């Protein structure tokens, strides 16, 4: 309190996790641009493609999903979506895809530039829309596309047969990249990357699990920003170091009784789905103004890439959120809700992401039932601002809050 009772925007501390993580996220773009300028080949990479492969080979890659989120958060979503719609793409297609395809055409976006690719790395463990999106880029730019096929897993566990199927493809991808770029795979370097990635993952999981404390030492919206580093750079030393700083800060926050959630935490929810980037302020304010802290999301669990060897890595990539079966995905979320004392769930029915939003009504119903907590959902879009209504959002959030309040025994 007192003097610490804080100005809302303190000057960035270069030793803070926020500063370090922001710098790593920005550096991913500048590193790739510099590599391109030096004449090196750079790639575009799907967020759930095994980042260990380009990292071990020493290749620079950029992440179109990340770029699209950045463009949308900074207000360029509608402009970019309109460009690709003008090219003939339906506005039913994922807005990340539309923005990325628009960028390929326009080759610039003041909100977030990145170098054009010499190859694309695609993995469908996240969705199948991705395949067509990347195929179109590869065809239009006349560059190779490397696709790793990791189909949706209808079973609870990943079988050995699946691991074999994936492993063969990983090696094939590595060999193709070696041939195309001239870089060489090194077992020793792979071990380093694997260990660093494990370190980042452990720190991330530990940091996000600090929400078990009441009040939570952080605002869950932080995670939506910080996860960018987990997606793009978890195999890098500086990422592991920044994640460990994050964990340390959250622990200290708890000890000092402070939080990055700058309001009284009256209610705790799990947020389900991708952030509504064009409306980030509105969606976060709608919660904060009511004392609702989004303490957890599946992202807190999703980047647990902790494994011991190459086979373990293959298994981990078959066990990512959009590829695992409903019961398994549900159980992970139930655990998050229980561990973090969640009182309600807010589901973003994301018009872009058919897969995620498709299984959510049933999954969230089961989670709500198992945990005895209310579930509310709102319509929105991760990157196309036209699919969101502030008034509708507000009513649903308020309804959810009123139920949570009643459950506390406040109302009769």
């Amino acid at each position, binding site marked *: 309190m007192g003097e610490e009772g804080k100005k809302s925007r303190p000057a960035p501390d270069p030793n803070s996790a926020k500063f370090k993580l922001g710098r790593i996220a920005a550096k991913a773009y500048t590193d790739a641009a510099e590599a391109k300028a030096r004449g090196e080949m750079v790639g575009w990479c799907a967020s759930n493609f095994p980042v260990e492969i380009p990292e071990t080979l020493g290749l620079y890659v950029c992440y179109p999903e990340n770029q699209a989120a950045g463009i949308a958060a900074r207000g360029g979503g509608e402009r970019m979506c309109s460009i690709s719609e003008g090219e003939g793409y339906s506005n039913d297609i994922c807005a990340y895809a539309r923005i990325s395809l628009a960028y390929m055409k326009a080759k610039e976006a003041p909100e977030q530039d990145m170098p054009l690719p010499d190859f694309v790395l695609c993995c469908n463990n996240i969705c199948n829309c991705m395949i067509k999106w990347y195929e179109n880029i590869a065809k239009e730019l006349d560059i190779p596309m490397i696709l790793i096929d990791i189909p949706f897993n209808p079973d609870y566990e990943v079988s050995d047969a699946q691991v074999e199927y994936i492993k063969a493809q990983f090696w094939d991808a590595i060999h193709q990249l070696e041939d195309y770029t001239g870089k060489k795979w090194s077992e020793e370097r792979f071990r380093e990357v694997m260990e660093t990635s494990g370190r980042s993952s452990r720190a991330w999981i530990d940091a996000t699990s600090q929400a078990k404390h009441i009040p939570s030492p952080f605002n869950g919206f932080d995670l939506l920003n910080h996860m960018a580093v987990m997606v793009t750079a978890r195999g890098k030393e500086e990422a592991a170091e920044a994640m460990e700083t994050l964990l340390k800060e959250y622990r200290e926050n708890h000890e000092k009784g402070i939080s990055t959630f700058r309001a009284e935490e009256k209610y705790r929810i799990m947020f389900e789905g991708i952030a509504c980037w064009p409306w980030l302020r509105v969606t976060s304010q709608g919660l904060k103004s009511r004392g609702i802290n989004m303490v957890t999301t599946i992202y807190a669990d999703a980047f647990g890439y902790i494994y011991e060897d190459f086979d373990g890595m293959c298994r981990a990539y078959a066990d990512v959120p959009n590829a695992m079966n409903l019961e398994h995905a549900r159980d992970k979320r139930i655990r998050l809700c229980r561990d973090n004392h969640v009182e309600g769930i807010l589901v973003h029915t994301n018009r872009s992401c058919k897969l995620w939003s498709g299984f959510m009504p049933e999954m969230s119903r089961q989670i709500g039932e198992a945990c005895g907590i209310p579930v509310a959902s709102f319509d929105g879009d991760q990157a196309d601002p036209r*699919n969101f209504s502030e008034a509708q959002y507000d009513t649903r959030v308020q309804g959810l809050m009123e*139920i949570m309040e009643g459950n506390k025994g406040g109302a009769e």
Partner: protein
Amino acid sequence: MYTLGIDIGSATSKCILLRDGKKIAGSSVVAAGTGTDGPEQALKMVLEAAGADRKDILYVIATGYGRKKFQGADGEMSELSCHARGVHFVFPDVRTVIDIGGQDAKVLALNEKGRMMNFAMNDKCAAGTGRFLEVMAGILKMDISELEREAEKSADPASISSTCTVFAESEVISQLSAGTALPDLVAGICQSVAVRAAALARRVGVREAVCMSGGVAKNAGVRTAMEKELGVKILFSDMAQLMGALGASLYAYDAVRDRETSVQ
């Protein structure tokens, strides 16, 4: 002692003036919603009806889409909780409320105390809401209040399969030109709204007794279609459109009571 609930929707403003938390002293409905002088008019009308004065009101709760813009309120609550509370006051046994308003449809699950435990609302699409009925009535050059009588005459409701309001519009036009009888067409339109809202209800879980509220509930064509669709009896009150305002006036009464007990 008076408390007021005002429900400001997209197309209507409704007021309930409550005396001592128990008796409805007056009500008003004005066909003009948020952003118009509808809320003020509704307030004036309810005071006139009850022979009361603005300064007699101890507490005002606003609800509905326009709840935040209304200047004269002491507090605001979502229409979700207010509808649940209003319905419970009229029908204490109700556990499921299907409320269809001008631009949204919602289904509320209530516990035995009338508290909302869960809800589901329509997505961004206008199908299954009052707006859908309005557009269809417009095509048929009918007043929305006439739909009910027309639907009653139907023996064989036409099937309107498009969920999109624009597609359904052309479907209705082509059925009209193909000679489908007007009552069948109107009954088909009512059914289409009922089917959409019933799907929402199933998501929340249908527990009896079930009540319909909101402006669209006044239409018996939709209520009958809903009974058929869900296979349950649908309770209905003439106050269907006023449940939100009623609930708000009850919450306003609670607020006065809480204030008094905290002062004591």
